[in-house]
């Protein structure tokens, strides 16, 4: 397969994803969870015959909150509101119990607005540190061109995943940050395995052109790439289907990120390495 020769198309594909994501980020931004915006999230279990509208109307009657959105999934109701204190939470629960049947408060989260901006800042710092450390390690073990290609590829994986979360308005919570770092960890793993093969082939290289050597290395590791992504996706799919709603978004982020990360290891990182090498040679 002529991966390197077709790199223009891969770059275009990634660029389209990135641009679409950036446009969406400007148009509709991200669907921040209360982890970032501050606020409260109450999760109730009630009779599934009750509708989200009924709950919203009831909550508005209580006059406890400035704003509320109600999301229903089966017998679970998610109430997102401005930040509530203990007393308001208790009143809300008591009010709902009076109005509806079989009401239990399953979980309650309240986050102050200041903590949200701290999480966002720490997340960016964490991602930055991870990328720099990886660049250093790969430069130390391989060479700078490998490190640069790997880290650039990783950065665009992060951009694309963030963009997809904006496009589909999936909720961005602090779990999302964990997901991004995990995606970075797994994608770098894929990239390193391919680069390791490139390094090995470079050592025994005779008169082979760099692009054919890269294509050959990709094909030699293709079995591993496909099988590994399959074995990681299997448990993710079962987690998505049976793992309950709490970590659903987390699992979606991982699924999307791993697949695109694997694609990028082959179709972005390797071509980038080629271009960096060509440029530094000329």
């Amino acid at each position, binding site marked *: 397969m002529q991966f390197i020769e077709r790199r223009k198309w891969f770059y275009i594909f990634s660029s389209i994803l990135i641009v679409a994501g950036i446009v969406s980020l400007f148009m509709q931004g991200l669907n921040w969870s209360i982890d970032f915006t501050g606020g409260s999230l109450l999760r109730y*279990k009630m009779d599934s015959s009750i509708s989200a509208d009924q709950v919203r109307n009831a909550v508005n009657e209580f006059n406890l909150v400035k704003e509320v959105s109600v999301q229903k999934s089966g017998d679970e109701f998610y109430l997102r509101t401005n930040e509530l*204190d*203990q007393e308001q939470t*208790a009143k809300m629960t008591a009010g709902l119990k009076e109005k509806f049947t079989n009401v*239990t*408060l*399953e*979980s*309650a*989260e*309240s*986050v*102050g607005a*200041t*903590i949200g901006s701290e999480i966002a800042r*720490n*997340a960016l*710092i*964490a991602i930055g*540190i*991870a990328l720099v*450390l*990886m660049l250093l*390690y*790969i430069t130390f*073990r391989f060479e700078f061109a490998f490190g640069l290609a790997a880290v650039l590829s990783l950065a665009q994986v992060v951009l694309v995943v963030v963009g997809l979360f904006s496009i589909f308005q999936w909720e961005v919570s*602090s*779990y999302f*940050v*964990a997901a991004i*770092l*995990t995606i970075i*960890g797994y994608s*770098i*793993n894929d990239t*390193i*395995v391919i680069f*390791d*093969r490139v390094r090995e082939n470079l050592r025994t290289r005779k008169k082979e052109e760099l692009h054919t050597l890269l294509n050959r290395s990709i094909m*030699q590791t293709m*079995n*591993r790439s496909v099988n*590994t992504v399959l*074995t*990681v996706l*299997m*448990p*993710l*799919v*079962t*987690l998505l*289907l*049976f*793992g*309950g709603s*709490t*970590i659903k978004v*987390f*699992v979606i982020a*991982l699924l999307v990120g791993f697949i695109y990360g694997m694609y990028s290891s082959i179709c972005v990182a390797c071509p980038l390495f080629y271009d960096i090498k060509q440029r530094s040679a000329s």
Partner: protein
Amino acid sequence: MTRTRREDKLLQKNTSIAIIGAIIVALAFLAYFTYQPIMNNIKLGLDLQGGLHVVLQAQEKEGKKVSADTIQKSIGVLEERVNSLGVSEPSIYPQGNDRIVIELAGVDDPEAAVDIIKNTAQLEFWDETGKVLVTGENLKDAQAQLSSSGGEAMVNLEFDKTGAKLFAEATAANVGKPIAIVLDGKTISAPTVNEPIPNGQAQISGNFTAKEAQDLAVLLRSGALPVSFSIMEKRTVGPSLGSDSLDFSIKAGLMGLLAILLFMLGYYRLPGLVADFSMVLYSVLVLGIMALLGVVLTLPGIAAFVLSIGMAVDANIIIYEHIKEELRLGKTLKAAIESGFVRAFWTIFDANLTTLIAAMVLIWFGTGSIKGFAVTLSIGIVASMLVALTFTRYMLVWFADITKNNKLYGV
């Protein structure tokens, strides 16, 4: 008597069969006998058994700076309150200069627990003009009591020496007038003084339920926090949601694991079987280490565990792909296994180390559930390398003694 080469080989083959047989039996025993102890000892996070995570922010008052000492004292008071809740392993620690994090798992009613924690519990007795006569600082004891008729609950207070003296003076000066009992700025009752009380005994009776009286007594016994706190962040999970999450994710995890095992067996045949054995060892190892180190298993932690199984399988896949290549080059099975491992070692090492970097950064960055995720992932990465480079390797070599059929290796 000299043995022929053929006999030698046969002996070697039999030894290998014996070793592999012994290992499989040992593995089965290990998995069977460690299952219960691990399950009993592994600590579940609050998202898997219900509980609370609260971050308290000290409220600075004018002229009163919040010092490390204030925070330490507050932690002491909070510990006492939490202990009265009967939580087995509370975790209370400072964060930054003016915050305290409280994590309690296994609380039946986490919202009620937060109610108790958040109070400053500053008890004051005021006269009519609002002058403070005596405060909770001078309390020796506080006990809840049901009145003899059984209906009303109250809290009996006992002052220390200074408190008793102050209280005696206060009651003497206010005969016929009310004294307000004020908790955190809120009047809970304002009884009228009938006669001076010299013995340092007082009683608070409001419209308490038995539970409310209990809670108040706990608050007063553990004393007031030296400074007021506001709740910056609060997450509570009820016990039923926790156990639901646990059931769901274990089920999902097992199915994912089963899918991987079947895939490995189907695709890689004999080495796939070896990989499956190493997965069992790997699982016991990771969960065992977590139980030993007291690492908390959280919901994302279960996801991390399942993911790290994928990672462990990956190490095997890398090795097998190398072995297959060496076999295709025409090497003998044993030589292929040896050189396959040598080549795979640095691949696995470099790949896993970069992943470990991401996990380490996550440990540093994350709190609560996310930290649990990162710790589990890190343990998984290290364990998977160990298992793949030792156990898998020797199993393959022993299997190679038994059969030289390349087809069993998928070539």
